[in-house]
């Protein structure tokens, strides 16, 4: 799970003298870990409290009677609460997965073309793709709503998938182009001489080589789609079509004081992306270093 595997073991060991910066660094790291962890730990501790324990004053640091009730309620299809929540999770899974897969299908050939071909307008197109995320989501909300209405997609998951695609595409295209730039064209040539068609050469030789980049961009697209709130909130109005971030808000407005339930829901919806990211983060950092930073 280690992130950037750098080759600098020598420094830490050689440097015997514990100077100010070294000690200060450890203290800083400790504080940073507390800062990062406390909110998440508190989320979890709250989620295993009873509703009454959560709103005791002064707060119980550790729950006296830990309970998984909130989780049970959220994940059991036998009550309304759980049915909704599971459906929203399912919606999120579908929307994020579709976005991710389509994103890869669209980004890979585009990145490949930007890297390999020299067609007129290439640079202009490339940078116009890149600046997409400079525009705030809010300002596109209303026009996109109109577009979706024209396409008859309002209140469907496809409106979200189409929109989310554009969040991931710039990073995906950029990172993957970096990968393809670093793959010698001769490998493709060799494959074609060895009997592969253009497409086979791409599929059997180039694709596997850019796998870390594809995985990295896929994670990114998935996480962005999974977490998106604003468009999901605006485009979807049937309760059964909501994605989990919007569902979370719905819970909150309906059960204002049920903090354990809310924290449990937040916890559950964070688990997939956190696990996904931690398992695959080495690809992410590798892609960032290989495809992007090194140039």
């Amino acid at each position, binding site marked *: 799970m280690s992130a950037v595997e750098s080759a600098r073991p020598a420094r830490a060991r050689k440097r015997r003298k514990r100077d100010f910066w070294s000690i200060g660094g450890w203290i800083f790291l400790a504080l940073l870990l507390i800062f990062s962890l406390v909110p998440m730990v508190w989320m979890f501790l709250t989620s295993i409290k009873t509703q009454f324990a959560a709103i005791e004053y002064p707060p119980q640091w550790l729950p006296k009677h830990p309970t998984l009730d909130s989780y049970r309620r959220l994940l059991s299809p036998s009550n309304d609460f759980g049915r909704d929540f599971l459906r929203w999770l399912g919606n999120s899974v579908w929307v994020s997965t579709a976005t991710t897969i389509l994103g890869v299908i669209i980004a890979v050939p585009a990145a490949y073309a930007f890297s390999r071909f020299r067609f007129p307008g290439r640079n202009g197109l490339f940078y116009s793709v890149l600046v997409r995320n400079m525009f705030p989501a809010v300002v596109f909300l209303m026009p996109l709503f109109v577009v979706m209405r024209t396409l008859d997609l309002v209140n469907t998951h496809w409106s979200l998938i189409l929109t989310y695609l554009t969040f991931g595409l710039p990073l995906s295209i950029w990172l993957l182009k970096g990968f393809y730039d670093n793959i010698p064209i001769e490998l493709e040539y060799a494959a074609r001489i060895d009997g592969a068609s253009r497409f086979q050469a791409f599929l059997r030789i180039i694709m596997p080589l850019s796998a870390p980049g594809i995985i990295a961009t896929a994670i990114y697209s998935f996480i962005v789609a999974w977490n998106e709130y604003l468009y999901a909130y605006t485009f979807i109005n049937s309760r059964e079509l909501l994605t989990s971030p919007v569902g979370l808000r719905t819970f909150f407005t309906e059960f204002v004081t049920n903090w354990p339930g809310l924290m449990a829901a*937040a916890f559950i919806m964070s688990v997939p992306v956190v696990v996904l990211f931690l398992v695959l983060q080495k690809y992410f950092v590798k892609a960032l270093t290989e495809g992007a930073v090194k140039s």
Partner: protein
Amino acid sequence: MVNHRGDYLYILPALVVMMVVIAYPIYFTIRLSFFDHGRALQFDDLEWVGLDNYRLLLTGAYSREFWNVTQNTLVWTVFSTAGAFFLGLGAALVVQREFIGRGIVRGILLIPWVISAVAAAYIWRWLYHSDYGLISGILTDLGLIDRNIIFLDDVDLVMPALIVANIWKEFPFAMIMLLAGLQTVPEGLNRAAMVDGASTWHRFWHVTAPHLKSVTLITVLLLTVQNLNSFTTVFIMTAGGPANASQIWVTDIYRIAFNRTNFDVASAYSVILFGVMAVLGYFYVRALTRGDSTRSTV
């Protein structure tokens, strides 16, 4: 003659998606900002009003609010960006050292960035809770305060409180970018400096920092853009309140468009935002294309 028609096929899907989702909305917004559309979600019967919407915003009925919100936006963006950047830089430098469990520590530090902004916003809302919040609870236990602090309902405290939550969510991004940047610092240089007896601080300033210049530029630009655009944290935690004390551009645009259904004014507002973004975008592309520059993106 080389035929490029086939080449475009590869980028066509990407282009179509981008056109539908980006180009048309931009056109739509710019156009609408010069019209009066009435109050309905119908846009076929528009009346040309020239710069009226802009006037309304900058000098007219909305102006007091606009300038107030602009001030908030500046505070929000500058402090969030600076905070996330420096915390991320510190984090990158400390987790770059070799130690047991480094991978786990890095993983933990990255979690806030990965989780959903909605979840994060609720977590922080709960931490700041005026009755049962952890933060007030701890401060009381330590004897630092005798009454709970009302973070999110206090016009003076709400902005700093939001910024802290935002930094919590964003510093890992700066960390991961800078970590990638640190990989490009040649180890030989660092060794040489150590042999020359340079102190840690000197080594950082004279060896490491120059190599981080371009990645810093891009990270700061991206953080700035992210913060200018960040909607969810503010919307969920305070929705701009109390009394607009935490209203920023994007939440304000949302409010004007969807709560007051003034789409035309909101469009003018958006166009102004486009302008700001275009300037940042220009620097961004320039940073990306500079000869030795670090490449990365949104």
